[in-house]
């Protein structure tokens, strides 16, 4: 049987499992109306691919997932889609989410299923699991594909979790004792898929019938059946890994970090059916129990079946119903209405009477007894976390490893002051997650703001640049006409200093000017006698030539002075 390891803390609550184990698994009759929430897993809702009025077949995809973010859901039976709208879903908040409402036609006609071909690669098999909507059926609903892919290398150990430690819940026990062959087939399918070194099935010793059945089915295979002592919460993923291998999953890490992959037994069966038959997750075994039910037991029902339909099947006495709990009494949550649908993660439904689940006593002040610390299976300091969480000092609680808390409720169970410790931790975690989300949004907004600011500055600079270019162009245009004049002026002004025309040219110019003046005087004298009308014109010409002569003489004398 190998070495038995241990995890710290833990409690021994009365398990109350016998009541729901008296009868074999029953098949729930098909309901007339089904409500399929788009989100039945950890992550975002998928994208709807059907429309109101469409006729769908059993197993037909209703939504499309995106690996790593969302998982598709499938039609649990054939029928017509009557609405796609917000509807209450089983969640502690009691809020609504988008659901697909189907009116069943009663024929339960199957969609054409595509099994995964034998030639498919591992990645293709993972995607096949994603397409068939396989998620963890133990209660957390983590997408199986993402979990399998979280390991970079093949794990050393594959563990199938059949511990089912929480009181009342017997869905996995019923599965293991009645369908041990399918559990072993699931184990082998998963083993082949991930290629681990060993494959263990962990079961608590309070399920002798399941242990016996599995031992027989596993005969001849290398799957090892490991029995662990019943103690809550041995069925927690990290706790079971610690029990079977002695390895502790690091804080904030994944089982893959210590070379372990852990899957629930029901998930293994779903993986096998998905790969071998192409069957999507459209039904599950769920435990119906509690004193308010006349016929408790395990029932295999389609996803989306209204809970009141199931409770009616189990003989609910509404007069005696005091608390309706989904999940176990320690980790589950209260439902306020029975109009909710069954979802992939719903492993148990407890219809408790007032005697069975009395209202919690009024919490008394913490007396620092330290019992919670002894019960904590992850070695936290629940009392310290309680002080921080109740005072709203969530950051400090985070530094005391709040996020390692698995919310098992063992500390609540032992608290002599009846403090709802886990509720404080849940609140604290919720606040911190919300803060993280807001911080991410703020950072996103800052980035957009800064980029916008940069863009505006860039545009401003561009405009400035264009304006300057235009101005320059305008100046150049203005300068073309007066350019020669100004050039001449500057040349004349700078002639004394600049290497101007030398003396010979100046003399030449003066002589030319003098010659022109003489010609003009001669013309003028001639005109005065013959054509008097041309006289003014010639006089002006003479003046002009006279001026040029003066300028030339002056330039010459200036040049002579300089030299």
């Amino acid at each position, binding site marked *: 049987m190998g070495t038995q390891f241990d995890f710290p803390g833990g409690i021994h609550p009365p398990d109350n499992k016998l009541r729901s184990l008296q009868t074999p698994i029953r098949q729930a009759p098909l309901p007339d109306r089904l409500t399929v929430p788009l989100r039945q897993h950890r992550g975002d809702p998928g994208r709807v691919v059907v429309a109101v009025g469409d006729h769908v077949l059993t197993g037909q995809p209703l939504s499309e997932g995106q690996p790593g973010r969302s998982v598709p859901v499938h039609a649990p039976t054939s029928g017509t889609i009557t609405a796609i709208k917000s509807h209450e879903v089983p*969640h502690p908040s009691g809020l609504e989410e988008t659901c697909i409402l189907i009116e069943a036609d009663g024929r339960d006609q199957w969609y054409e299923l595509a099994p995964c071909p034998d030639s498919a690669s591992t990645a293709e098999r993972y995607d096949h699991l994603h397409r068939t909507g396989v998620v963890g059926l133990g209660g957390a609903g983590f997408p199986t594909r993402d979990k399998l892919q979280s390991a970079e290398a093949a794990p050393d150990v594959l563990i199938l979790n059949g511990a089912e430690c929480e009181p009342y819940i017997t869905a996995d026990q019923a599965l293991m004792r009645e369908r041990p062959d399918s559990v072993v087939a699931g184990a082998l399918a998963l083993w082949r898929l991930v290629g681990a070194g060993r494959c263990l099935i962990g079961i608590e010793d309070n399920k002798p019938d399941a242990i016996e059945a599995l031992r027989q089915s596993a005969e001849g295979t290398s799957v090892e059946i490991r029995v662990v002592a019943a103690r809550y919460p041995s069925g927690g993923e990290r706790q079971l890994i610690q029990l079977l291998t002695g390895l502790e999953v690091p804080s904030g890490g994944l089982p893959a970090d210590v070379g372990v992959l852990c899957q629930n037994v029901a998930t293994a069966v779903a993986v096998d059916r998905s790969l071998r038959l192409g069957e999507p997750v459209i039904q599950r075994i769920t435990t119906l129990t509690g004193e308010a039910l006349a016929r408790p037991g395990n029932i295999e029902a389609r996803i989306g079946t209204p809970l009141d339909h199931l409770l009616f099947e189990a003989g609910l006495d509404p007069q005696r119903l005091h608390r309706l709990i989904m999940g176990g009494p320690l980790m589950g949550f209260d439902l306020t209405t029975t109009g909710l649908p069954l979802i992939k993660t719903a492993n148990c439904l407890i219809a408790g009477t007032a005697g069975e689940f009395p209202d919690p006593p009024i919490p008394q002040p913490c007396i620092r007894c330290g019992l919670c610390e002894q019960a904590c299976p992850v070695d936290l300091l629940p009392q310290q976390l309680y002080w921080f969480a109740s005072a709203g000092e969530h950051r400090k609680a985070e530094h005391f490893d709040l996020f390692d808390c698995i919310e098992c409720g063992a500390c609540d169970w032992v608290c002599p002051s*009846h403090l709802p410790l886990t509720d404080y931790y849940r609140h604290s975690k919720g606040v911190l997650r919300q803060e993280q989300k807001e911080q991410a949004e703020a950072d996103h907004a800052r980035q957009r703001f800064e980029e916008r600011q940069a863009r505006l500055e860039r545009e401003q600079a561009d405009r400035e640049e264009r304006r300057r270019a235009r101005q320059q162009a305008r100046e150049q245009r203005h300068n073309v006409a007066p350019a020669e004049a100004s050039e001449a002026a500057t040349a004349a002004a700078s002639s004394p200093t600049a290497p101007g025309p030398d003396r010979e040219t100046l003399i030449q110019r003066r002589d030319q000017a003098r010659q022109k003046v003489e010609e003009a005087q001669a013309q003028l004298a001639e005109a005065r006698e013959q054509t008097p009308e041309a006289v003014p014109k010639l006089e002006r010409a003479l003046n002009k030539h006279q001026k040029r002569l003066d300028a030339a003489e002056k330039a010459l004398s200036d040049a002579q002075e300089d030299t």
Partner: protein
Amino acid sequence: MWMNLLLAIATLLLLAGAFGALLGYASVRLRRDDDSLVEQIDAVLPQTQCGQCGYPGCRPYAEAIAEGDAINKCPPGGEATIQSLANLLDVEPQPLDAEHGEEQPKRVAYIREAECIGCTKCIQACPVDAIVGAPKFMHTVIESECTGCDLCVAPCPVDCIDMIEVARGIDDWVPPHPADRPLTHDGPVIATDQRPAEASA
């Protein structure tokens, strides 16, 4: 003996001098640069860029806080931001200054599209480019990018922008504080080990 005394004094003086020099050098060399403080303050602010604090954006306000302005002028951040700022700067948290507005649940702008005339005034006002549209064409708000700063409401010439509260879904749900839960119990307040119907459990 005098020699020993002098030696001791000299040693101490030397040590004091050496450490003084070291500290002096460190204070000059490793001075906390103002930019990193502004960065830290800016990281705490909610980045709505709404200007309700009286500064044109979150960073200018962060700069002002770094220079000693009050930390309680940010209504979108509310108590949580004031608390974080008080922790960061090691000062006493103050209640939110009502002069700059009240803390409100997160809202986003919504353009009544039939009334929009396509003037682009809101697009120019939006600090995070969350509005799309073109001149003479209908505008609309990208909900996921809108910070709810209100800055687009005033410039709109036809008043077709509403600020609506964001519906909070399951993703935004925070489990309630147990002390806020209504008591369902009418039994005795004093604890007793007599629990009715214990045997049935």
